[in-house]
């Protein structure tokens, strides 16, 4: 299936939830976050789409316009086609249904994106930080992240200490 056909299939099924976005490239489809779980389940189970592999979840902080995005790279082992799904989140309260039980790897990818961006995946059974320590503060990959001053009494150096010279 080409990307247009995938788009058409999805639009026919979920007409309201596929958002037209001019900024996206032709490989990407933007969907509405609240419907994502149903769309994902459909995309996996539909015999024509059969996206059985979730390649990657990338969290993106788009910078000034204050949105976070989750980008899902889906791939079908059966038909060898792929698509990228983009979901925009509100930066104040970023949340999206979890697809952890649709694709099992979603578990760790979502935990990673949660760890780095603070996007909360609702319905995830074990949404903890995965790479950072559990008590780390802040969401490191957001553009407005500022490092902690100290962590368990260890001072986090802001910039490289200048060694004595002159």
């Amino acid at each position: 299936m080409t990307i247009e056909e995938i788009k058409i299939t999805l639009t026919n099924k979920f007409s309201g939830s596929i958002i037209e976005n001019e900024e996206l490239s032709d490989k990407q489809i933007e969907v509405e976050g609240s419907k994502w779980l149903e769309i994902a389940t459909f995309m996996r189970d539909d015999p024509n789409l059969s996206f059985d592999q979730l390649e990657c979840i990338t969290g993106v902080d788009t910078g000034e316009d204050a949105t976070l995005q989750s980008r899902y790279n889906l791939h079908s082992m059966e038909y060898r086609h792929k698509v990228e799904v983009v979901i925009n989140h509100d930066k104040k309260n970023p949340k999206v249904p979890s697809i952890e039980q649709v694709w099992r790897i979603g578990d760790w990818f979502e935990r990673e994106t949660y760890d780095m961006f603070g996007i909360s995946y609702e319905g995830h059974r074990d949404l903890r930080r995965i790479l950072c320590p559990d008590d780390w503060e802040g969401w490191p990959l957001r553009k407005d992240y500022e490092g902690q001053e100290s962590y368990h009494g260890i001072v986090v150096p802001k910039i490289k200490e200048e060694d004595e010279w002159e």
Partner: protein
Amino acid sequence: MSKYFTNIYETVNTLWTGMRITWRHMIHIKRDNVTLQYPEERWPRPERNIGFDHKDYNVIRSRLHVDIDDCIGCLKCERACPVDCITINTIKAPNRGEDISDIGHTGETSNGTKKAMVVSRFTIDMSECCYCNLCVYPCPEECIFMVGGPNSSKHPIDYEFSQFDRKDLIYQFAKKLTPDQKKTIDDPKPEVEA
């Protein structure tokens, strides 16, 4: 039942094959030995090397070295470094291309470029260096390089630069200037911060 005995046979057979291999290696240790006895034998082993001579090295990644007399203070290497282990401070020279004998500053590089800057500080923190070689390429005067290999004529190889104190791994290539010496340079602007 036959499977039981086949299993035993296979086990004995495969294990014996393995034992034959280790035995062969053991009795041919003189031929097969690959150990390099480090302090006595150094890397380019006379016999037993994989077929190339040390002189033919395409490039080498070892300690960074700066020929400070050739440095024009363009800061390109500092910008190229991904881990910020190079720090350079420069002061504008009073007359471009002239020697300043007080501080041992030479005005011209070996390539004939006239220097506009006096490098007052050039430190490389080798404990932070990631040996990526990225600082070597942009240098217009080829004065920063990794020692040894094709550069062994400029500076002999130095793989083993261990120190007891981490501070000693900060290599200082520019001569330290005293405040008085700085005054002799007589610069209207005090210092260009890196």
